[in-house]
């Protein structure tokens, strides 16, 4: 593409601010704007954080192995569970969703990239640097220690009042604000991409369920993060500038914090689970060789969950004395969520029912998801029964609930998704044998870790306690949990070994190894940079499937003679290498921009205004360069 304006100013600038061109080598990962590479960055970084969060969990489990444990001090324990929860939610759960969304959303709707490639990259760097920022607190006086929802006034009281030592809560507030900025940029990007970049014929109702779920979580993110950002700013101001937002002695109201947090916090848990539901909705039909049962209803119930999810946040606050009228309303609304969720569960079962089931690793994880998530959902409904919530609230019963939905739901789906899309992303299969061993280890370890938590919770063990006394009968359950935790770790290790070993073995997969249904299987594996040589035209839900199969009168599948993943490609001809396709050029500036954030972040934590200034300057510099850099790399042709 020639430059739009041939003026000399611009030509000069092109030299000074030339966009990077390298598409390979490690430096290309720093400047890439390719949604697929960014997705891999997101996924692998989130995996690293998962191991970190997991190791924290294992330390927690070691401490709780026996009564009056002495592995950790209370101060350390409190940092560990806070960082474990924060890590798993903000540095594993959300980024994993963005990883899958980033890779698959454009492929599934037939686009060549997301709407804003450079902003996409910015989101990743903010995530990475935000995570590093949070973790650096361990070396800078102490990590956050107020719990993953950091209730005020515990977190908002300045250190001098003696409530929480260290700058932990400052790191936490600033870190989450930063991560929030990153999440909002991804959300905007996904929303615009979904609404605007669909291939011809890809109407909203023809979009794969996974795309729908990503779209819904993007909307939820967009609206959920501002309230918590406001609350975090208020916490920060209370700690450092003597405001009294949450200081009851001066008229502040600690409950306001809880409302603002859970107004985010509850939609957040659906932000975490809906991508998982989307992944499962893609895997089940493929390995059952049947279309998703009631696909539209599954989409609609996802939308319903998205909406109703806004009206239930007070179920985390039943014990705060909000009054019988409020608990009634929110209790009922919470129960109501079980209906659309149940619809999904039953429709998934309906998909498997009567199919031709191939029990691949991905399928095992998806079936595991159905079973385990249901258990977690049911204990969720038990929480919503306000009187019994009084007993369960803040005990290990709640810990059991949310690990069943988060681990049994989200993490199972993520592993399922890994096994399913690995061939697409890297071109080779993961070992199915190791995968199955891993699955069963994970399944057993998971239940061994978290099922006993139901019991020990009902036996009266509160959460977030660094120790417990003898005589409660909690010892055995805790020991089982600890053993289970290590079995999970083993399972994760098996996965990591599988990744490395499979890479060596390089068992090539081909474009459509699973006989897939959605557009990403119509293009080669690994996916070429330009995604689609020709943008496909879509005629139906599961369009790619319908290119391969039709149904006879009884509704049985019949393979079409010419179907297949090469159907849309025309390998001959001058444009067969995709060289005529213009892709967004890489850029340095999102990285520079992102660096400004943690810099000013440290400034805010330590109240060093010079540092804040430097950070803002870096950020402004990055932004300016971003705005004035040429549209494409210099050597870009035509």
């Amino acid at each position, binding site marked *: 593409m020639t430059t739009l304006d041939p003026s000399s100013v611009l030509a000069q600038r092109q030299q000074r601010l030339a966009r990077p061109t390298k598409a390979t080598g490690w430096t290309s990962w720093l400047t890439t704007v390719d949604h697929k590479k960014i997705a891999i960055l997101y996924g692998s970084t989130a995996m690293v954080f998962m191991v970190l969060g997991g190791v924290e969990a294992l330390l927690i489990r070691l401490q709780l192995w026996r009564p009056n444990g002495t592995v950790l001090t209370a101060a350390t324990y409190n940092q560990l569970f806070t960082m474990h929860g924060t890590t798993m939610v903000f540095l594993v759960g959300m980024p994993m969703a963005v990883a899958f969304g980033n890779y698959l959303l454009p492929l599934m709707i037939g686009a060549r990239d997301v709407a804003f490639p450079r902003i996409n990259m910015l989101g990743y760097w903010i995530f990475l640097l935000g995570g590093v920022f949070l973790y650096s607190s361990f070396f800078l006086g102490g990590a956050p220690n107020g719990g993953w929802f950091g209730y005020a006034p515990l977190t908002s009281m300045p250190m001098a009042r003696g409530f929480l030592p260290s700058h932990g809560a400052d790191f936490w507030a600033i870190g989450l604000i930063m991560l929030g900025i990153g999440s909002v940029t991804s959300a905007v990007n996904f929303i615009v991409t979904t609404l605007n970049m669909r291939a011809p014929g890809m109407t909203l109702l023809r979009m794969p369920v996974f795309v729908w779920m990503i779209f819904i979580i993007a909307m939820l993110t967009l609206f959920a993060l501002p309230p918590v950002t406001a609350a975090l700013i208020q916490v920060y101001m209370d700690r450092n500038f003597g405001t009294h937002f949450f200081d009851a002695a001066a008229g502040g109201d*600690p409950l306001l914090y809880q409302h603002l947090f859970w107004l985010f916090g509850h939609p957040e848990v659906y932000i975490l689970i809906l991508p998982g539901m989307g992944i499962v909705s893609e895997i089940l039909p493929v390995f059952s060789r049947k279309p998703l049962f009631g696909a539209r209803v599954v989409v609609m119930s996802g939308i319903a969950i998205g909406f109703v999810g806004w009206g239930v946040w007070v179920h985390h606050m039943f014990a705060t004395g909000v009054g019988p009228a409020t608990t009634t309303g929110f209790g009922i609304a919470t129960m109501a969520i079980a209906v659309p969720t149940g619809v999904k569960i039953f429709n998934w079962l309906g998909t498997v029912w009567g199919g031709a089931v191939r029990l691949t690793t991905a399928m095992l994880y998806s079936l595991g998801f159905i079973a385990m998530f249901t258990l977690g959902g049911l204990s969720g409904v038990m929480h919503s029964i306000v009187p019994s919530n009084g007993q369960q609230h803040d005990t290990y019963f709640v810990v059991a609930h949310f690990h069943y939905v988060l681990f049994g739901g989200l993490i199972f789906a993520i592993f399922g998704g890994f096994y399913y899309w690995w061939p697409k992303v890297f071109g080779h299969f993961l070992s199915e044998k190791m995968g199955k061993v891993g699955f069963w280890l994970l399944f057993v370890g998971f239940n061994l870790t978290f099922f006993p938590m139901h019991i020990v919770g009902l036996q009266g063990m509160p959460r977030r306690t660094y120790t417990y006394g003898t005589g409660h009968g909690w010892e055995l359950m805790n020991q089982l949990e600890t053993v289970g935790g290590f079995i999970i770790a083993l399972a994760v290790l098996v996965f990591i070994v599988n990744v490395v070993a499979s890479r060596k073995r390089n068992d090539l997969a081909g474009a459509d190894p699973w006989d897939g249904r959605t557009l990403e299987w119509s293009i080669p594996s690994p996916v070429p940079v330009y995604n689609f040589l020709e943008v496909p035209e879509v005629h139906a839900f599961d369009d790619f499937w319908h290119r391969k199969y039709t149904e006879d009168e009884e509704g049985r599948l019949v393979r079409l003679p010419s179907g297949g993943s090469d159907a849309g490609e025309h390998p001959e001809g001058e444009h067969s290498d995709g060289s005529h396709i213009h892709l967004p050029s890489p850029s340095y500036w999102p990285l520079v921009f992102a660096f400004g954030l943690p810099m000013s972040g440290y400034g805010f934590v330590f109240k060093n205004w010079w540092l804040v200034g430097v950070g803002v300057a870096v950020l402004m510099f990055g932004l300016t360069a971003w705005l004035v850099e040429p549209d494409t790399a210099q050597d870009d042709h035509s």
Partner: protein
Amino acid sequence: MLQGIWRRGRHTKLTAFVVLGAVALAGCGSDSRNQSTFEANGKIARDDANIFNAFFIVAAIIGIGIMAATVFAAIRFRSRPGNENPVQIHGNTKLELSWTIAPAVILAIMGVFTVKMIWDQAAKPANAMEITVTAKQWWWQFEYTKVEGQTKQVVTANELHIPAGVPVWLTLKSDNVNHSFWIPQLMGTKDNIDGHVNTLQLIADEEMATAAEVDQWLGGQCKQYCGLSHADMRVRAKVDSKEVFAKWYESQLEPWTAAELGTFKQWDDVYACSSCHYIQGLVPDDDAGVQAGSKPVPSQRGPNLTHLADRKSFGSATFSYGIESIDPEDLTEWIWDAQKHSAGQDNSKPMQCPEYPDSTAKIKCVGMPSFKHDKRNPMSRETANEIAIFLLNIGKKA
């Protein structure tokens, strides 16, 4: 019929869980489970358990059903030669409607019971005894503001005495961060939040008063994460017969005698115990005001020490002795070097307690300062022991 199932006893959900998870088997050993929700010893706790049990059965059926269906479908419809091309079913409106409506109906039924119970539990019972529970960092203070047949108010800490069968109306407060008051065998939790006044109803079973010789202490614990010592913020409740309760109540109103105060002052002058602890008798005016409910309790940083000897636990019930008396050796250690026992255990990073700004001791705001390490007046272990023995013998009235 539902009622019947609900009444099936306290162990329904425990047994059910045992059936569900073989792992649970050993969980019901013979340990004292005085903090377990499996045993309800009060009306509210029993209501909570009943509604839980009722839904537990529903949930167990749904859960087992879905897991069974998943496993069945996966095995029954395995891909074998001949079925690779199954009939393509895109949906079924009737089925979908039914599995939308059925859960909705189940939940609606549960909802009705839930709502009824919410309002029942929120109502203040007639003729209730009233107690204000203030959450401290990290212990509990109880003020008996309205007790039938009594005109004076008792102030005590960490051990809640209540008469059996009498409705009790708790008023929950905090003057610092959020806490949550919970005695599982009596009632579900309610938070203590600064700036808010929450209320909670409880009625202990009549039977609790009869077996006097048995360990009737019910365990409880702060449930809302409140910082460093959250895990050590425990509480115990004792359900007495009305007579025993009345006797205990009278005893708690007694101040120390002049002679007792004299002994105490020799230490108080050095270690300023009374700047944190309320001692009845020290300032008679205060006592009168507190007991009339017209004056705030003085020195609220630590618990009222006057009747420590009557308690069976100390250190916010982290040191508890069943029905035995407090062990003087333990108390000695605590007085001497409470930091060693308290949650922090992290003596490497002492924190200045703002409420003790001039102290040179390494003070963490965890319970007590460490008098052993007080730079100006380091306490000897002998002194600590003397104080402990003094406290455990004095004022023992009940």
